[in-house]
């Protein structure tokens, strides 16, 4: 038996098909992945992501420590609640993990992937030497992502019910993208992994089952990990371990914009390596992560070979897009490739190269 989130029984009650995900029993779907996907694009859905790892970072050197640890620069977080997406790199410029860091009253809060928890914590601890910081993992929290065009309105309806929660929804309605607010022991932020508007809520796990029930009563649909993957793929968002890992430069994973190159004297871990990668990129020897579109029948899947006019590449994530009704993929291919074919079960099929961003706010966004 795997580990359970505080909502395990709620998933079973909602008819979830449970699967093992990095040692956790998690819902893959509650019947139909495609229906769940479309709920998020059209109304609102809730994902239980309580299996993810939350670490609070406090101490006088918290900022200096994170400016060393992360490829993006927490100096950009100019107010409490602001959020930043970043890679955490090793000395070779490979991606140890991707994460979200929030500036909080305590200092900072980081949310990292569940499958990488052990190595992330070890890495973060080993690089804290010499900094006045305390790293505190927060296992007693639930994390829910509520996404979709009606998500914010429905969350606010629930939070306003009978003063049950120490949360004033006016503050939520004012949230800008990539910012959050601490309300008592709740933290609510406009971040997510779907390409829709939405909120992520981090709060005490004992409150999770009742809050879940109220969300469902308000018309928010439970969404499994299957739809979470197809939604993030449509949004062109990377999945750790598939689109990047410790052997992959962020420059070969469409993450160049998440590296804060300025100021030049900020010596983050992996800096010298990614500076070298940038030179390789300029010389044309660094592959790039692109979007692929298959407008005929068939499904592109992770691991399939891509044969380009300029060499060979590989699909890092692929699948069927329920919004577009055809298959899409992220693939790492040689630079300056113009025409590609996917090796789909031995059959070479032409695919089109596009920017790695397919759907935003329910609409197709590539040409």
């Amino acid at each position: 038996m795997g580990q359970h989130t505080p909502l395990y029984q709620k998933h079973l009650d909602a008819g979830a098909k449970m699967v093992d995900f990095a040692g956790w029993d998690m819902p893959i779907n509650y019947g139909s992945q495609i229906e769940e996907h479309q709920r998020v694009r059209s109304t609102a859905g809730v994902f239980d992501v309580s299996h993810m790892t939350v670490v609070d970072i406090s101490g006088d050197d918290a900022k200096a420590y994170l400016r060393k640890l992360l490829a993006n620069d927490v100096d950009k977080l100019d107010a409490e609640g602001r959020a930043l997406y970043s890679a955490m790199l090793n000395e070779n410029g490979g991606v140890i993990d991707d994460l979200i860091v929030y500036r909080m009253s305590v200092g900072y809060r980081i949310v990292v992937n569940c499958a990488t928890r052990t190595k992330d914590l070890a890495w973060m601890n080993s690089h804290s030497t010499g900094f006045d910081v305390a790293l505190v993992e927060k296992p007693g929290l639930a994390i829910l992502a509520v996404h979709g065009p009606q998500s914010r309105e429905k969350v606010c309806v629930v939070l306003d019910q009978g003063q049950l929660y120490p949360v004033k929804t006016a503050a939520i309605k004012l949230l800008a993208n990539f910012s959050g607010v601490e309300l008592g022991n709740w933290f609510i932020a406009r971040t997510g992994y779907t390409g829709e508007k939405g909120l992520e809520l981090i709060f005490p796990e004992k409150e999770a089952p009742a809050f879940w029930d109220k969300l469902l009563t308000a018309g928010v649909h439970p969404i499994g990990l299957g739809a979470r993957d197809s939604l993030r793929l449509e949004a062109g968002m990377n999945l750790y371990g598939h689109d990047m890992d410790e052997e992959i430069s962020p420059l070969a994973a469409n993450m160049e914009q998440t590296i804060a190159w300025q100021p030049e004297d900020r010596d983050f871990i992996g800096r010298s390596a990614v500076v070298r990668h940038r030179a390789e990129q300029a010389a044309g020897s660094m592959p790039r992560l692109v979007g692929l579109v298959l407008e005929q029948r068939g499904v592109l899947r992770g691991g399939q070979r891509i044969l380009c006019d300029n060499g060979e590449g590989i699909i890092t994530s692929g699948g069927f897009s329920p919004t577009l009704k055809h298959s899409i993929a992220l693939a790492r291919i040689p630079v300056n490739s113009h025409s590609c074919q996917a090796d789909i079960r031995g059959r070479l099929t032409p695919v089109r190269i596009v920017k790695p961003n397919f759907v935003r706010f329910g609409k197709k966004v590539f040409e």
Partner: protein
Amino acid sequence: MSTVPDNLRYASTHEWVQVDDDGIATIGISDHAQNTLGDIVFIELPEAGAMVNSKDEVAVVESVKAASDIYSPVSGEILEVNEALLDAAETINLAPYAGGWFYKLKLSDASELDKLMDADAYVEHCDAE
């Protein structure tokens, strides 16, 4: 729980066969199979007129999860394929034993049916997997 009709024969690879009085077999995949595959988005079907042997790969089902080969549970000549599935593969999820049938075949060796499972044996087979 999956539905397992009593009047069908089943292969260990989760195809079902129904044979009518004229020796025409209709083939599809079981409710258990469609449930395991998840939402089905595309299907490749064989050509009418083709001769197939039992255990030949005759079709491919692409679901949100994976591509899966479908093996013919019996041998014979394919008489007709369910072309409606080409534009509505989700019918296999919705009605695996009715509108979700794959193809019809003229049996060349009716004794092959004896090698397939009845409903009770198939339920046990699924439970053991």
